[in-house]
């Protein structure tokens, strides 16, 4: 809502600066998003062209003599539209104007043009910064006072308000004036709406039938005869333009003007185009269409409310008028509609037809049914005054379900309970009165409050409490920090695990990313196996913002891959990313199952440790190290078993198991997938299903005693078949009660190790809690281990 201050000040005295006014309104809930000043010109005055002579040296130029209030100046003018008698904007030397070539402000200098000195300039709209129009000079209205600074005549300060949907009353200049009055302690001046009714009784000219009173609580109609269609007066045009509306003709402008002034949308029909001079408010019929004022044809649905005459729809109620009943040059009699329509119905219709207008935006918020009568009278007065019309006697007013406005009972106790402070009775009553509320005091301590008719948003006692608070100012409410009564604590194991996993992966050295949960179906299909895709088909967004953001993820893989590629391109070095977030697995007729997942991706060269052997690309075991470290931080012991999955490279894929249960995957990205995402080089990906992992994560740590006796360290190298897992060998070595740990330090294949075999070398630490193991004891234990390795895994000691 754009509110020019000059217009606002017609209804209320503005006693403070615009900035402070904006602040006060904003703090009271009517946000002033911007203060726009137009026409802050210096050295530009209203002038009148009194004489034109041809330029002696140029055909296209004229010499214009301008009266600037008792003083005459001659300027060189090139505009085609300059004429004697015009009121114009005359700029003197030093005025800062927009340069038509550069579109930048520049000071005006005295100039000699083709040998004739020009004392100033007659300005175009572009030069004044009012529009892009530079086809000719700007011609001011005839009533412009010669000699006054243009800024005082045309300059304007406009408040741009962002009105919240609960305050349709504030979508009007009068509504804002009421707020200003309450906030600054002054009185509102209501616009005049009396007029003389010289015409015949309105009932003899028109009839109104409301067939859908559920959607149209009130319909007021007036008829004005003998109007002369023409442009509206310049002051009205200026106000409409300042508020952002385009002037059309005097009748239409008056309907728009009163809408902006009072907040009530109005519509003017050409009375003669209404069949049988009849207005029927009804639901549209199947198959009906209506060409709207903007030229589009609306296909009407039976739940849409229309205004019809005896034969056909003539307007889409509360949204837009129809072309068939439009006021035109030839119109002489106007039927003015000032009605109240049900908000949700108007909103549905406007959304369905995608025509949202100033009218529909007001109606959908729920206007007061008391407003139409005031607005109709105001508009008729203006039509009588400005269009030379004759008002019919009386108004048609169909208002079947008139209800008395309910009182609201706000106790002093409730007010204190809500606000947390006391406000004196005197101040409450004063504040509410300033806002137009009626307020009676009932013993022992209750305010009986009736909101003014325009405040449809105030219904319950707490609404009234807000009115009091916002006017006295939220700043006055004390800030109190008290010891609360605490509810019993509830554990959320999944959330706690999720956050621990986040920490663990970061501690392991990976960077957390957060990616969008929406992508396109093809991208998801690329990173899912056929079975995964079939068992959990991704949910679709019905109104996606783009094709790339259409399907809800059922995996974190795609987002991570995208982030990986972006980073491999933008920066050198290893990229190790993880994400912890939800995937959405659809369920029948229910919200999707939201599963917390963790996933990581690793690619690129390992950090270059200068002076040491060259950096190598990260491989499967680097990725595995991140995962293992994170799992170790969580206290989880995992096993990695060979697995197959369409997204991973066969032979480089593992299922992650904990206590025999599958909890995730680890593997090298399949080259086909890598290529599809344009990943350069090998990439390694892992993921954990936190729901599956959860039961296997130890709640806490148990202490294990540490030995005070020195360990004995030995290397143990064995040769096994190539397909014997190293983990099995290690597990067997560590099964010995005397072995504290066995760490793999070498894997070797090739001569002299026979074909199909591999050599595994472990650093074995023997240790006992109660003694230092003797050499003989260690030797005995080693023989026992080797025997078991031979027996169970077909291993042989490497010589």
């Amino acid at each position, binding site marked *: 809502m754009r509110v020019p201050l000059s217009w606002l000040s017609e209804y209320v005295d503005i006693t403070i600066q615009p900035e402070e006014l904006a602040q006060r309104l904003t703090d009271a809930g009517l946000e002033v998003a911007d203060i726009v000043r137009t026409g802050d010109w210096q050295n530009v005055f209203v002038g009148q062209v009194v004489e034109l002579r041809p330029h002696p040296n140029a055909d296209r130029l004229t010499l214009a003599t301008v009266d600037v209030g008792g003083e005459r100046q001659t300027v060189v003018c090139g505009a085609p539209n300059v004429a004697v008698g015009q009121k114009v904007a005359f700029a003197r030397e030093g005025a800062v104007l927009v340069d038509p070539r550069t579109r930048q402000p520049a000071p005006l200098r005295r100039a000699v043009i083709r040998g004739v000195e020009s004392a100033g300039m007659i300005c175009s709209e572009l030069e004044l910064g009012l529009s892009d129009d530079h086809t000719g000079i700007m011609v001011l209205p005839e009533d412009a006072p010669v000699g006054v600074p243009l800024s005082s005549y045309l300059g304007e300060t406009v408040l741009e308000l962002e009105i919240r949907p609960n305050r349709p009353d504030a979508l009007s200049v009068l509504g804002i004036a009421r707020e200003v009055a309450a906030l600054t302690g002054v009185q509102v001046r209501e616009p005049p709406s009396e007029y003389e009714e010289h015409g015949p009784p309105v009932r003899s000219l028109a009839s109104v039938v409301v067939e859908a009173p559920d959607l149209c609580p009130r319909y007021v109609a007036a008829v004005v005869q003998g109007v002369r269609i023409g442009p509206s007066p310049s002051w009205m045009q200026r106000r409409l333009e300042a508020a952002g509306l385009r002037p059309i003709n005097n009748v239409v402008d008056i309907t728009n003007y009163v809408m902006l002034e009072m907040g009530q949308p109005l519509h003017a029909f050409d009375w003669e185009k209404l069949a049988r001079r009849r207005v029927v408010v009804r639901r549209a019929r199947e198959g009906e269409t209506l060409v709207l004022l903007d030229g589009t044809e609306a296909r009407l649905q039976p739940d849409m409310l229309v205004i019809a005459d005896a034969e056909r729809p003539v307007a889409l109620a509360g949204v837009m008028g129809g072309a068939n009943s439009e006021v035109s040059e030839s119109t002489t009699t106007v039927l003015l509609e000032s009605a109240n329509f049900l908000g949700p119905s108007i909103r549905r219709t406007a959304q369905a037809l995608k025509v949202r207008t100033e009218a529909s935006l007001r109606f959908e918020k729920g206007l007061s049914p008391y407003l139409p009568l005031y607005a109709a009278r105001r508009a008729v007065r203006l039509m009588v005054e400005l269009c030379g019309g004759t008002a019919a006697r009386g108004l048609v007013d169909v208002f079947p379900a008139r209800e008395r406005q309910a009182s609201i009972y706000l106790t002093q106790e409730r007010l204190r309970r*809500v606000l947390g402070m006391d406000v004196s009775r005197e101040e409450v009553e004063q504040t509410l009165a300033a806002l137009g509320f009626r307020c009676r005091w009932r013993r022992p301590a209750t305010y009986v409050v009736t909101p003014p008719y325009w405040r449809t948003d105030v219904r319950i006692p707490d609404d009234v409490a807000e009115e009091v608070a916002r006017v006295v100012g*939220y700043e006055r*409410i004390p800030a*109190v920090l008290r010891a609360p009564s605490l*509810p019993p604590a509830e554990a959320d194991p999944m*959330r706690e695990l999720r956050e621990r996993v986040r920490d663990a992966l970061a501690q392991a050295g990976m960077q*957390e990313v957060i990616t969008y949960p929406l992508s396109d179906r093809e991208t998801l299909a690329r990173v899912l196996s056929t079975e995964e895709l079939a068992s959990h088909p991704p949910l*679709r967004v019905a109104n996606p913002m783009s094709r790339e953001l259409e399907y809800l993820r059922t995996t974190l893989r795609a987002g991570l891959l995208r982030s990986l590629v972006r980073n491999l391109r933008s920066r050198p070095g290893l990229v190790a990313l993880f994400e912890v977030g*939800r995937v959405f697995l659809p369920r029948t007729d229910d919200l999707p199952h939201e599963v917390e997942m963790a996933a990581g991706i690793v690619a690129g060269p390992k950090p270059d440790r200068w002076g040491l052997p060259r950096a190598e690309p990260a491989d499967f075991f680097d990725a595995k190290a991140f995962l293992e470290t994170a799992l170790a931080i969580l206290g989880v012991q995992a096993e990695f078993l060979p697995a197959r999955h369409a997204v991973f490279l066969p032979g480089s894929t593992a299922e992650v198991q904990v206590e025999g249960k599958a909890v995730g995957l680890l593997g090298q990205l399949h080259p086909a997938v890598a290529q599809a995402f344009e990943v350069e080089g090998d990439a390694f990906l892992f993921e954990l299903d936190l729901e599956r992992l959860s039961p296997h994560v130890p709640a806490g740590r148990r202490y294990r005693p540490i030995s005070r006796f020195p360990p004995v360290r030995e290397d143990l190298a064995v040769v096994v078949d190539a397909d014997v897992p190293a983990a099995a060998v290690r597990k067997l070595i560590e099964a010995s009660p005397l072995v504290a740990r066995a760490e793999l330090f070498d894997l070797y294949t090739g001569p002299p190790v026979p074909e199909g075999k591999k050599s595994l070398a472990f650093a074995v630490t023997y240790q006992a809690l109660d003694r230092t193991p003797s050499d003989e004891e260690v030797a005995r234990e080693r023989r026992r281990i080797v025997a078991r390795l031979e027996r169970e895994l077909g291993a042989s000691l490497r010589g």
Partner: protein
Amino acid sequence: MPSLAETLRELEEEARTALASVADLEALDSWRTTYLGRRGRLREVTRGLASLAPEERRQVGALANRVLEELEAAFGERRRQLEQEALARKLAEAALDVSLPGRPLLRGRLHPVTQTLRDVLAAFAALGFQVVEGPEVEWDYYNFEALLIPKDHPARDLWATLWIDYRRDGEMPMLLRTHTSPNQVRYMEKHRPPIRIVSPGRCYRYEATDPTHEWMLTQVEVLAVDEGISMADLKGTLAEVARRLFGTERRVRFRCEYYPFVEPGMDVLIDCFQCRGEGCRTCGQSGWIEILGSGMVHPRILANVGYDPERYTGFAAGLGIERIAMLRYGIDDIRLFYQNDLRFLEQF
């Protein structure tokens, strides 16, 4: 022929000269062997003692002992000197270019939104708020209707919604939640006052992205319901959280705002981090930046979940984590968060 005593003195003189010119520990050892060793020069001279008269032998013997002691002492002194020199040389040779970089280790980090979210939750935890969560895909009922935003309500425009392609009875009842407020109702349906929770999570809006708008956001919902909770508690709690997050020097302001599910409604603002209240582009010339929306829980919502609104009152608030992270780190483009560029993420 010089006397034995003279010979001793000459020898002492010579040994001292030689010692002075010894350059390293090796030469020092051979000096010692030469002069003080078992077969050294001093022994050689003292062997002549036996041929002297007893009186003279005692005198010269004493002299010989003194010479021996003094040379030993000089030797020790010289050795310390040489050892120090050797050490200094060795250190000089081994000196590092300390400006060379340390060998890199991998350092992992949490996303700045995660870090900020945790700080926000910690600030509320210190005031006794528990964390609870809810689903990101929600029913229209919890996201809107239960919050007093029925179908065809104009306030729905405040939350441009992404709907799930699922129809039931001709309606589309499933959506990506536009805020964390549904968790208010979800939690209250299952609990009785006193209630004191924060509920974090991702939210989604149908919104074109620009430096200040992102379609995915992280919110924290705050809800406290009990007897005797007023706007003064709301102000006190939120001011304290703002102080913990942004420091005591920041100014906090409160103003009236409309949300359908609170009454009265309130916005909390802090002075702009860029201009400190002067007015700049970041704060839209106002000098203030909105950090959260809040208000007193609408009594109808309390009644709908079976609480007596005459007995219980409550406050609710919603914070945007990205906004807070932008303020804390001076980030001027919200889109950076979810572009996941390591050059950005590694700064936190």
